[in-house]
């Protein structure tokens, strides 16, 4: 954080805990899959979305010890909880098990990953919360996994932005039904979950293009979830868009609303302007913000008016990644104390039903 704004007492909504090596999951994986991994020479599922050498992938000082950045709970605790004085950190593990094509293997890997998160991370500090990792290949298995963990330190369901089919489509609805039943939001984070190209017009050449296009993928997923009727079928569902920029949302809402006026008969379950559906169901993390350098009060004022509500924004550090510059902090500086409190912690405390005193008891 910057010098003028302290994030003391904040809820950091996007922290990436990393699997140190595939074998760390073996204690949680059925023996048949352990054998399979060993005998076929599987090398792990580190996502091809954060090249290890790229400055974006690890902030200075996060490469400690042998494993990848974010793989040591003690180091992460120092860096995201004790250092900045955060109240809670929500762990979003990006180990890309959902990109595995084999649906049974993918589901087993996701189960092992969640067991590992519970044992190695949630048990390590009562201020850690985690997201339930699921594979979309078998939505019913995913729904069972959501039900298995709800309330036990897991506060949301995590889906990768790049999926084999748009997330709004009915095949995915068992996941939303389970999340709604467990009162958990569903988060969508840039990441690889399929073999689809990373842009709507084919495979980009450079990593910087992949990353730039992640914001576009989130826009496609949001369009899909609204148009296909996810929120009409699951009125209690909240969706969190992580690490995908924020400032594109007004332009999408305008275009979507305009099209809805002319094309709504295709999607009769969208019975209100899409912008209204989005504002009722969607929150976004502020890192990165995609804002101009030196944003001032007038810019923030205009941005919040177009967005609709400061209650849609969640503070996030995106540890150990490092690309957001100072825009999220600059945004906080321009907010009133009450608005700032909402973005830093209030919105997340309410969304994730976090107790004032860290612990799981009240969440059970």
């Amino acid at each position, binding site marked *: 954080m910057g010098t003028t704004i302290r994030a003391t007492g904040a809820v950091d909504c996007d922290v990436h805990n990393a699997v140190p090596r595939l074998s760390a999951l073996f204690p949680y994986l059925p023996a048949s899959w352990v054998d399979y991994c060993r005998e076929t020479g599987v090398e792990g599922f580190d996502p091809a979305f954060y090249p290890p050498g790229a400055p974006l992938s690890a902030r200075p000082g996060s490469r400690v010890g042998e494993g990848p950045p974010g793989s040591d709970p003690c180091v992460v605790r120092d860096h995201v909880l004790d250092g900045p004085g955060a109240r809670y950190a929500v762990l979003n593990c990006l180990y890309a098990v959902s990109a595995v094509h084999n649906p049974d293997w993918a589901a087993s890997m996701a189960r092992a990953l969640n067991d590992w998160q519970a044992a190695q991370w949630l048990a390590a500090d009562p201020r850690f919360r985690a997201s339930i990792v699921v594979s979309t290949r078998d939505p019913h298995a995913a729904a069972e996994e959501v039900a298995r963990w709800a309330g036990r330190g897991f506060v949301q369901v995590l889906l990768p932005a790049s999926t084999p089919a748009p997330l709004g489509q009915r095949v995915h609805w068992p996941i939303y039904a389970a999340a709604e039943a467990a009162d958990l939001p569903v988060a969508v984070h840039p990441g690889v979950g399929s073999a689809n190209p990373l842009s709507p017009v084919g495979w980009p050449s450079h990593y910087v293009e992949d990353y730039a296009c992640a914001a576009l993928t989130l826009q496609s997923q949001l369009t899909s979830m609204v148009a296909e009727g996810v929120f009409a079928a699951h009125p209690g569902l909240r969706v969190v868009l992580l690490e995908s920029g924020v400032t594109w949302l007004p332009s999408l809402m305008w275009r979507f609303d305009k*099209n809805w006026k002319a*094309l709504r008969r295709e999607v009769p379950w969208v019975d209100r302007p899409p912008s209204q559906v989005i504002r009722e169901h969607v929150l976004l993390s502020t890192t990165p913000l995609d804002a101009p350098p030196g944003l001032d009060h007038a810019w923030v004022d205009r941005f919040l008016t177009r967005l609709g509500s400061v209650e849609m924004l969640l503070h996030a550090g995106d540890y150990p990644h490092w690309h957001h510059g100072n825009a999220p902090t600059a945004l906080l500086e321009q907010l009133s104390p009450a608005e700032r409190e909402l973005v830093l912690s209030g919105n997340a405390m309410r969304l994730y039903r976090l107790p004032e005193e860290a612990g799981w008891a009240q969440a059970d």
Partner: protein
Amino acid sequence: MGTGGLIDCDVHNAVSGDEELRPYLSQRWRRHMELVGSRTFSPFTKGYAYPKAARLASRRDAWPPTGGLPGSDLDFMRGQLLDAYPVERAVLNCLFRAPEQRYDAYGAALAAAVNDWQVEQWLERDERLRASVTVPFEFPDLAAAEIDRSSAHPGFVQVLLYPRTAAPLGRRQYWPIYEAACRAGLPVGIHAASTTPGPITATGWPSYYIEDHTGLAVAFQAQVVSLIFNGVFDRFPGLRVVLLEGGFAWVPALAHRLDALHARLGEEVPDLRYPPSHYLRTHIRITTQPMEEPERAADLVPLLREVGADLLMFSTDYPHWDFDDPYRAFRTRVPPDLRRRIMHDNACATYRLAS
């Protein structure tokens, strides 16, 4: 309008049917047309994967009494558009399915036929008309040859591509098109279109046309990302790209995103000479239809200024269903100077139109 003339940057002239192109095809391709005909990426012989808002995506009043398709009858178009508004020039973008052909040589033959037809049936019949060169853009060497051939006629002011390509347009495979466009002194236009060799989002195929249409804006953005980061504008400093019918409210957020990413990850693309937003403002122009409609109408003028007073060019999209009426498209008062640039001056500069 109030002040002066209008350049309409997006008007669709239509080929009413294959038979209309027969006179412009050799015997070999006439035979191919009879034998096999069109083979595109669409699952259907006719129509679209996602039915449009209206038949052929057209205004219901745009079907000419003479019986052809909307946009096929110049006299009728004069009555509904060219004479009905103070149109000084109109740029025709013919969306006939030549570029979508999977058989490269047939696509090239159809493109050449469309262009010859445009010269004879449109450009030489009304001096207000200009047109885009149809090219088989997935086969860039054939496209370049067609640009070289057609650009000899002064009525062609642009090369026409579609946004949903087989690969991102910055990739080297497409560079022969840019080379030929620069040789001919023409901008490259990218116009919204439906058919595509791959899924239309990075997450696969959506279910509804509202997603297809809303999602066009992200396809255009992906092309901007690709063109800039692959160094197309450094390699072709004279190249201008026009984005047609892809919206423009997304420009500021994308520009901020790309500049911030370039500041952090620029080492990956060391040949880039400027921050990404520089290329956007210098090389890219954007047409206005479908006009952005901010929730508060008063937000439109600040948006126009934020995007850039020199970037935007007015278009009606006649005869399509979401036509923007030049008198009513802006739902707020636009200052006269800004309005004149959008309605007229920017297009004159981009297409080098004398006025």
